[in-house]
Structures are given as structure tokens and as C-alpha cells.
């Protein structure tokens, strides 16, 4: 951090995150939006101030909650009208698109409150764009501050950032972001060029389970930061905690800040218990960056994932119960893997097909399997074809991940032969990233 004021200013909307869980389990409600980043500052024992936009009904409880997290000054810069600022989340582990639903989003309005914070001596400002007018909000803030912008959501045009009165020090973006999806074809360099107008010093691309890449010192260097994958309890706000930890640790340089941010983000994904989260973060901060480099982790950049085709071994038939299969396909494609689907590509044969047709399709499926880097099996209904494909892959030395959602294939040959077997898609997805991050491309 720069020396103007020792604490950062956090700017953005406060939202209520409401996470739907499985039937029979208790749903979860907590403050979201910039509250995730606030928890990150708190876990790192970094006092901070906040300038927020929120619905008036939330102000008292948010003020109280932020105070408990060590927030020094709590400014309200605007009020949300017409909507409760509640986001309903249906997939908190982000095995696929998290399926955010913002209630009454088309009715939502924001009334900014004129406040002059321009003379406050905040050196670093972490901003999360929202439904508010970013330029107007930035005009209320000190123009000499360095701005770190997490543009995962609510920014359509990077060129507009050039109009901000502050120098943009850092751009953080995620592969989950709609903006990234619209810009992502050009890779990391293409992303850098998209933000050229605001001339950031550092660009950070958070790539979910595949790690993070940073362009630092205005393109002089690229740093790879592997992900620390564990069992995901809740991935909502993990990127925000990354951003907070990064800003909190900037005094040690952007590279060290990035490494420490990956550990803080991983801890946030593994528990929603605030005290346990802080315990994890404080423990991890005792590791040196050299320790972290040596331990490494999972690193599989977004565009490289296309180099590892994944063979789907599943009863991918039109008449089958396809729920688990669709979930697996959605998850893998969401993370930019190419899923090769033999039934779709080589045809779904009628039961009374003649031997020559059967042989032709078998050969085509076999050849396709051999071209793939990994077999992802969803052998629902103990589908014999899928299990044969698992066996072929094991014998061929092609890694196999078995997703067995109703635990109907708990068999020695399947479990021990596969590199990973689980009823949990999150765990299977982590295994795919782990295996392929150490693999040679096809």
C-alpha cells in the first residue's frame, strides 16, 4: 500500500446473499457484495474503511456488522431503491454457472448521495463496480489515491475506466465474469489490450480452479499463481477475498500480495465459519512465499484447457436419465474444457443394429477415446458401455475420473483403477484440474 493512509477504502454495494441448499438442509443467508472483501480484510487483521451503496433497510445491520469486522469509517454513498438487493444463489460451489438471481433486478434503482471524501487521505481504494454510476462515485473519492478495480461484474466497457479521476493501479477480473467471456478469446494479452485505455500497472486474471495469472509492472512480467484446491464449501465471494487480501498485502509488492491472496481465497472457499476462516488465513500467512512456490498447486490457464479433450463415458442417450450427465457436461464446459461425446458424435444406435454397424461405432468411439487426455465417466444405471470405456482407458494409461452420483458403481476395479472416484461433482472437477495441470497436451 502507499503511505498516504495506512488503511484501504473499500467501495461498492452491499447485497444480501441467500444460498439455497439441498432439500432438508438449512439455507444460508449472509451479507454479500463488498462484505466478502470486508471479511478478507478482517481475517488479515487489516483495518479498513468502507464507502457503500445499499438499501436503507440494511444500513443499521450492515454498519454494525462492518464495525465488528474492524471497519473504521462507514460512509453511505448511495441508496438502492425498488429492490431488496438480495441475490439468490443456487450453486454455491460453482461447479458450473452459479446461477445468481437478483430479486427485482429490473426495478432496481440507485440514488447516489453527494458526499465529498476527496480530502480523505486514502492511498489505496478497492472498488467493486455495481449498478451505480462508477464515474460519479469516483469523483467523490480522493483523486490522488491508487484504485484497484475488481471488474468481475457490472462493467461492460473497459474503455470507460479511462474517465476515472484516479490512477488505476490494478485490474482484477475473473474467468467467471461476463466481461471476460466477451473478451476472453484474445488470452491474457488480449485482456491487457482491452484495458490499455486506463493503463493499469497490474492485471490479475483469476481463473477459478485453474489458478491466477498476473501481468505485473506494466507488462514487464507475468506471474503464475496456482490454485490451492480443497473441498469447496462455498465459492461465493472467493474472488472478492482475493482482491482484499491482495490490497492488504501490497506493501510487500504485487507478486507476494498475489501469492498470499491465493491462500486467503482458498481458505474462504473452504469454510463459511468466520472464525475458522480467520484461523486458516492467519496460519497460512506464516508460510513464506518461497514455501508457497515450492508447495505449488494446480495451475491450468483458461485457454490451455482446450488442449485437453475430455471423453465423456456415460449413457449419453436421448432416452436415459440425463440429469447427472448434463450437470457434468455443464460443469466441464463452463470451465472451458472440450467435452467429446461419443454418442453425440458417432451416433446413438438402435438396439437391433447389425454387427457391422455396431463394429463401426465401436471403432469410432474407441479411436475418439484414444485421442482424449482424460476420461470423465458418469456411469449412471451401471451402464455397461461406460464401464467398458473406463477399463479401456485404464489399460491405455489415460486417466479416469468417475463421477458416481448415486454410488452405484462402488466396485474395486472402478474405484482403484480410476485416478479419482467420487459421488461429489466438486471433488471430481478438482481431480480433473489436478490431473490435467500436470499432463502433457494432446
Amino acid at each position, binding site marked *: 500500500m502507499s503511505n498516504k493512509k495506512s488503511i484501504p477504502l473499500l467501495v461498492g454495494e452491499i447485497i444480501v446473499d441467500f444460498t439455497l441448499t439441498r432439500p432438508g438442509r438449512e439455507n444460508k*443467508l449472509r*451479507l454479500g457484495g463488498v462484505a466478502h472483501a470486508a471479511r478478507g480484510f478482517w481475517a488479515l487483521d487489516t483495518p479498513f474503511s468502507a464507502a457503500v451503496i445499499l438499501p436503507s433497510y440494511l444500513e443499521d445491520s450492515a454498519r454494525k456488522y462492518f464495525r465488528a469486522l474492524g471497519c473504521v469509517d462507514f460512509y453511505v454513498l448511495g441508496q438502492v431503491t425498488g429492490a431488496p438487493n438480495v441475490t439468490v444463489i443456487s450453486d454455491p460451489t460453482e461447479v458450473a454457472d452459479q446461477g445468481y438471481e437478483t430479486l427485482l433486478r429490473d426495478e432496481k434503482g440507485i440514488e447516489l448521495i453527494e458526499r465529498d471524501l476527496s480530502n480523505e487521505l486514502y492511498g489505496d481504494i478497492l472498488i467493486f463496480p455495481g449498478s451505480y454510476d462508477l464515474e460519479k462515485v469516483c469523483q467523490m473519492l480522493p483523486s490522488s489515491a491508487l484504485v484497484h478495480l475488481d471488474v468481475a461484474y457490472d462493467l461492460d466497457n473497459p474503455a470507460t475506466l479511462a474517465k476515472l479521476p484516479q490512477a488505476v493501479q490494478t485490474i482484477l477480473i475473473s474467468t467467471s465474469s461476463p466481461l471476460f467471456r466477451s473478451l476472453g478469446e484474445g488470452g491474457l494479452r488480449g485482456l491487457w489490450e482491452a484495458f490499455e485505455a486506463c493503463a493499469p500497472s497490474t492485471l490479475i486474471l483469476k481463473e477459478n480452479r485453474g489458478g491466477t495469472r498476473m501481468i505485473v509492472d506494466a507488462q514487464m512480467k507475468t506471474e503464475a499463481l496456482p490454485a490451492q484446491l480443497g473441498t469447496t464449501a462455498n465459492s461465493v465471494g472467493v474472488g472478492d477475498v482475493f482482491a482484499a487480501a491482495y490490497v492488504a498485502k501490497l506493501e510487500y509488492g504485487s507478486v507476494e500480495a498475489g501469492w498470499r491472496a491465493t491462500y486467503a481465497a482458498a481458505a474462504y472457499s473452504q469454510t*463459511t465459519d468466520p*472464525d475458522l476462516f480467520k*484461523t486458516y488465513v492467519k496460519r*497460512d500467512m506464516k508460510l513464506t512465499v518461497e514455501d508457497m512456490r515450492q508447495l*505449488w498447486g494446480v495451475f491450468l490457464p483458461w485457454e490451455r484447457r482446450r488442449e485437453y479433450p475430455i471423453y465423456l463415458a456415460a449413457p449419453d442417450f436421448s432416452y436415459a436419465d440425463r440429469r447427472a450427465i448434463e450437470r457434468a457436461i455443464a460443469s466441464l464446459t463452463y470451465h472451458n474444457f472440450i467435452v467429446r461425446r461419443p454418442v453425440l458424435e458417432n451416433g446413438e444406435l438402435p438396439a437391433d443394429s447389425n454387427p457391422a454397424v455396431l463394429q463401426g461405432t465401436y471403432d469410432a468411439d474407441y479411436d475418439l477415446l484414444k485421442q482424449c487426455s482424460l476420461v470423465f465417466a458418469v456411469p449412471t444405471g451401471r451402464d455397461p458401455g461406460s464401464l467398458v470405456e473406463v477399463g479401456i482407458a485404464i489399460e491405455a494409461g489415460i486417466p479416469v475420473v468417475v463421477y458416481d452420483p448415486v454410488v452405484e458403481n462402488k466396485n474395486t476395479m472402478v474405484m482403484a483403477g480410476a485416478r479419482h472416484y467420487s459421488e461429489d461433482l466438486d471433488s471430481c472437477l478438482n481431480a480433473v484440474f*489436478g490431473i490435467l495441470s500436470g499432463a502433457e497436451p494432446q
Partner: protein
Amino acid sequence: MGSTGSGRISDYPGSSPAAKPGGQGGGIGPSVEDRCARAFNARLEDVELSDYYRAHANLPPKGTRVELVKRKRLVVQTTDGEGIGNLPTSFNFLASCMNEGWTYIGTVQQVRSGPPVASISVDFAATPPQ
């Protein structure tokens, strides 16, 4: 854990059982949920590159007592100090636990010489700091 239900915001600092006086574990020490305290099973990586495999051209027998140490990676070694494989990086968090004094002692549960590659599965139990 954390905020539960939808009635109010409840995930305040100090709200978890681990942090309450008399709660499980007390403060930031071990609690039932703490990832440092969990027993675990792991299939080791890089077995064929390990000290043990290179020295003996074989795998350690089932039942071998092992411990977890940090070299560059987290390495599983016999009580004689011969590495038998690396822990997958998904267990990297244990490095922080070990810095705090947690120790991990285990037993080789399964060995397989391949194909395609040699593999070892180990069960570990955690011992809290003294």
C-alpha cells in the same frame, strides 16, 4: 457453520462454536471442523521418483509406518526418513498446520505396482501441537 437460516445475519466474528468460551476447541485452537485436525486418506504422487522406490526398486509393504514432512513439497517418508511419495497439492494447507506444531503419522494402506503407474495409499491421523 457461519450464517445459518434466513432470519438474521449471524456470522459475526466470534459466533462460531470454536470461538466461544467452552465451545468445541475453545478459541482458535482445534475444533471438530478444523482442517488441521482431520484424519485423511491420500493417494500419493510421484511414487516412482521417490527415495524409497529408487533405492529398493520396490514399494514399501502394506502396514509401513510413515510420517509427513515438508521438504519442498509435502513428502511422506518412512520412520527411517526415506520418502515414498508426495502428498497431492490439495493437502498443501497441512504445511501451515505443521508450522503450528501439528504432526501427521500414518500407515500405508494399499500399494499397487501398476500399470500404469505405481501407487500408494496412506491413512493419516493428526496429532495437535503439544
